[in-house]
């Protein structure tokens, strides 16, 4: 079986976990990868825990199974640590990236598993509040994600995200520029414990 790079996104309904997976998938495709991006569908409502996934590979992807052992887990809302085990199935040597104002040490107290993976933290909500005036951490987290995983080439990933945002926000400049600025800041500010 070929090697896959798999990502699981945790968020709450409305925070854009699905959009993040789609954006990340498309950005990866622009760098020449084969991609899948899919949400988990259930009784999702605003505020309820939701998940979405990515699968990346160098050759065409044929498997259509769930992602069980992700290389990277991204948590858009750290309050989820209180109600579910975000480390579940994470690969040995993988990365857990959390949007939080707390330190890695504080966060570790809430995690079921603290060894065998890399923990990275960025306060994406703060960046979003400052630059986008709303707590929408999903696109912001992409910057941190690209940085800590090294999964994508930064310039082409950024260009692809910008292109996609342009379509989504129909050319509304300040939103697009704000997002790009926020993504770059998350790239700079993310800390690996």
């Amino acid at each position, binding site marked *: *079986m070929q090697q896959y790079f798999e990502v699981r996104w945790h968020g709450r309904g409305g925070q854009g976990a699905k959009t993040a*997976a*789609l954006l990340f*998938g*498309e950005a990866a*495709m622009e760098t020449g990868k*084969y*991609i*899948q*991006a*899919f*949400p988990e*569908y259930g009784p999702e409502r605003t505020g309820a825990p939701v998940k979405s996934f990515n699968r990346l590979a160098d050759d*065409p*992807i*044929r*498997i*259509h*199974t*769930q992602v*069980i052992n992700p290389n990277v887990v991204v948590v858009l809302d750290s309050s989820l640590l209180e109600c579910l085990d975000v480390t579940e199935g994470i690969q040995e040597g993988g990365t857990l990236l959390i949007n939080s104002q707390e330190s890695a040490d504080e966060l570790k107290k809430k995690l079921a598993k603290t060894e065998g993976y890399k923990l990275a933290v960025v306060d994406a909500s703060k960046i979003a509040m400052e630059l986008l005036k709303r707590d929408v951490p999903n696109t912001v987290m992409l910057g941190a994600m690209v940085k800590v995983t090294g999964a994508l080439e930064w310039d082409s990933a950024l260009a692809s995200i910008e292109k996609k945002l342009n379509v989504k926000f129909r050319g509304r400049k300040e939103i697009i520029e704000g997002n790009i600025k926020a993504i770059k800041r998350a790239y700079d500010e993310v800390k690996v414990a």
Partner: protein
Amino acid sequence: MKVIAKTGNEAMAYAMKQINPDVVAAYPITPATEVVQIFSNYVADGEVDTEFVAAESEHSALSACVGASVAGGRVMTSTASQGLALMHEILYIAAGNHLPIVIALVNRSLSAPINIHCDHSDTMGSREAGWMQFYSANSQEAYDSIIIALKVAETCGVPAIVSTDAFIISHCMDRLEVLEDEEVQKFIGEYNPKYYALDIGKPKTYGPLDLQDYFFEHKRSQIDAFSKVLGTYNKIAQEYEKLSGRYYPAVEEYRTDGAEVAIFTAGSTADTAKEVVDDLREQGRKIGLVRMRMWRPLPIEEIKKALSKFKAVAVMDRSDTMADFGGPVFLETRGILYDLDKRPIITDYVYGLGGRNVEIADIVRVYDEITEVAKTGKVSKPVTYLGVRGEE
């Protein structure tokens, strides 16, 4: 050729846009809602010339499609699950009137219990309606199949359903290659129906009462027209290969050379199984995969040719017949193989109902068990419900 990222639903809606049908009448239903929603955006943005009819139910949607198709239009719609069930009555009317309507469908389980996820019970319940059925393994195939199916439908005067697996394909973004709009238009050509209601120079009656005197002959002629679809399909699939580089046989064989056993299945699971086949082949296992892509009309000779060479075949069925005899693919395949002098042992695995996840390990297990059956010649369990609690 352009490479884009699209979900199954987006891919089907995009193919519909490139086809630019005269009329789309539809009613939204999870998980096919997006197809209708995206297409109505194309209408609102002026990217198609289509007359879009937002119907009040699926029954009305397909009825409007029938009307538009009788009038001579190129007509498409989209639905899933209960929506197809509600269209059931009209499916027969469309087919009986030789109307080449195409449905972009997402395979979803039927209530009750209510569930929005994938199995094939919706389309399998419409096998006898006289519609062609194409089960896509991924978004690329869903896109391609919509275009191919439309041309086959209009050439043969037979309606078609092209389906994807709910969420697994419909909502999974994938990388796919698409044709240019002009290429699609050139491939499908202009639709010139032989007979249509608005042909006022040659007035005809549509949908008259047809009793004991001629109903049977008309049904027979419909069955006859349906049986000729496969030849046309093969020709058009080859034309499409010339255009796109992608070829989709009605029945696909994957690494069957020298194989002693095979899985016979459809949809996204068949795609996943290819990866399993590659892995097990590397270990020296003599296994292969046969994928059923077209299930109506039944590609009988292709199935015989593909399956007769094995010692044993495991069918994987994503629906059940309630006959206490497994799923429809199993039952019909057994029927097809009955005529052969030397036929493989065949067992059935009903799997994935209501979207139950199918893991690599599940498929490996089916290969292990069918290999054992081939070795011993004994079937301890003709029908297995794969991964059901309390069953195993």
